[in-house]
């Protein structure tokens, strides 16, 4: 089914592409399975199909990524800082606002306060000895596309950074409320970063045939003092991630075969809840 569709509208085949914009990646390549899609599928199959609304937190995260990974020029191209001092209750204010919106259509908007934070985050990032090495030389904005051998599903991912020099390492920037080991470990479980690490590493190996074996996280706090730490996951974590994404890919393949993404898990059985240990 996928193969036919790919031919019909000429979707990209397996490989690594430098010329697919973030917008195309998110809005056009919907036939391809991404990590965030799988994570939503994990809730229940129907959740994966709910259209994603752009929240302020997502806009902030996006602006962070652009500024911290790609620099000033890319930030100016893709984001805009909201002007301060516009009173939208006055006529002039309304006009000024309309002008601003018209001039920055399609860009990610961040408030002046948020922008100050982003600048401070970059400073904090540059002060971290190993994070600077991870980001020293490399490419961002690469789209990786591969076909999963078992389910034949087309998959995609967009690593934050691929360090140059054949290091076998992918780098991902994560904003968080606390970059400490314990707290970030909880984030890994909560947001499925283990799944992401396994999915990306397997994907880029599949797409390029080049050996990647490490997925480094740069965890950076969103509030002062912007603590920054770098982490990798241990082998057990990666195996768990692998198991999870494989399980979810199979669910997706089943749903596609049936053409139905149900709003319940499995076959919709009656389930017994067991009293948790913490009660």
């Amino acid at each position: 089914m996928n193969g036919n569709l790919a031919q019909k509208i000429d979707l990209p085949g397996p490989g690594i592409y430098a010329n697919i914009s973030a917008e195309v990646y998110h809005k056009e390549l919907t036939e391809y399975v991404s990590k965030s899609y799988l994570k939503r599928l994990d809730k229940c199959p129907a959740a994966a199909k709910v259209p994603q609304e752009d929240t302020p937190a997502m806009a902030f995260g996006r602006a962070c990524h652009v500024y911290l990974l790609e620099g000033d020029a890319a930030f100016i191209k893709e984001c805009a800082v909201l002007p301060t001092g516009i009173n939208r209750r006055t006529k002039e204010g309304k006009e000024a606002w309309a002008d601003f919106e018209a001039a920055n259509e399609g860009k990610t908007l961040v408030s002046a306060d948020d922008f100050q934070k982003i600048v401070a985050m970059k400073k904090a990032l540059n002060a971290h000895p190993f994070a600077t090495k991870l980001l020293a030389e490399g490419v961002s904005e690469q789209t990786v596309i591969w076909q999963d051998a078992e389910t034949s599903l087309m998959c995609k991912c967009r690593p934050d950074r691929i360090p140059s020099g054949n290091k076998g390492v992918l780098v991902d920037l994560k904003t968080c409320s606390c970059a400490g080991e314990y707290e970030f470990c909880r984030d890994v479980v909560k947001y499925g970063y283990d799944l992401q690490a396994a999915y990306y590493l397997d994907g880029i190996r599949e797409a390029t045939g080049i050996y990647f074996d490490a997925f480094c996280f740069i965890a950076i706090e969103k509030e002062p003092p912007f603590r920054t730490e770098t982490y990798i996951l241990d082998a057990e974590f990666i195996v768990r991630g692998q198991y999870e994404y494989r399980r979810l890919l199979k669910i997706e393949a089943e749903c596609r075969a049936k053409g139905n993404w149900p709003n319940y898990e499995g076959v919709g059985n009656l389930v017994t809840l067991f009293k948790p240990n913490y009660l």
Partner: protein
Amino acid sequence: MSENLPTKTENSLPVAAGFGTSDSFELLQRQAKLLASSELVPQAFHGKIANCVIALEMANRIGASPMAVLQNLYIVHGKPSWSSQFIIAALNATGRFSPLRFQITGEGDKKVCVAWAIEKATEERLESPPVSIEMAKTEGWYNKNGSKWKTMPDLMLRYRAATFFGRLYAPDILMGMRSEDEARDIIDITPQATVTAESIVSRFTDPTETVDPETGEITTAEQGEVAVSDGDWPGLPGVTADPCPECGQTEGHSNACPLAEPPEGV
């Protein structure tokens, strides 16, 4: 007068090498030292007293000769494992079963091998779980690099069936260990297992170090790096794509540009 003196032999019991008492441990170490100094023991034991101690203890436990254990114990992926021949020999030597026999049925992928023997105590025919070529393929043993399943399928079928037989009916001989060929077949599929924070840091400290695309080994690169090649995609209808840096076209080739130079550094 000599009658009054205690003689050495009267008071000391014969000492057996082992971990039980300080005397027996002393003896075990002396034996191990001797074996370790021999040039005829395999490399994993040569000059390694601790490894020899373990081999001696295993020989003692299963009642085999120390030399047989030394010759048939392999270290695969850091774990000890028996050679398949040794498992078959040890099974035959227990005296509990008739000599191990093999029954082969079917052809091609459906070729199935069952190892069997008669248990002397009960005169019952004991059979191993069936091992087939199909199983070797689905388990991923068959398609491994340098797999003996492709070149010597009949021998591998018998070896694996014997290992399974031993695991079920004489676990005391196998001591929870795998056969050597089995251990090579069943390795952890996660190469991530070897990645440590230190190894990653070192990749970023020494710019000449790279990771081997096949094995994940870190080596010092001498020639130019093989890096991610950026393919090109003409874009969806109605979506403008950046023109290909090589030929300037915005459509026409769906992956790597045919005019592109061999991939360079990213």
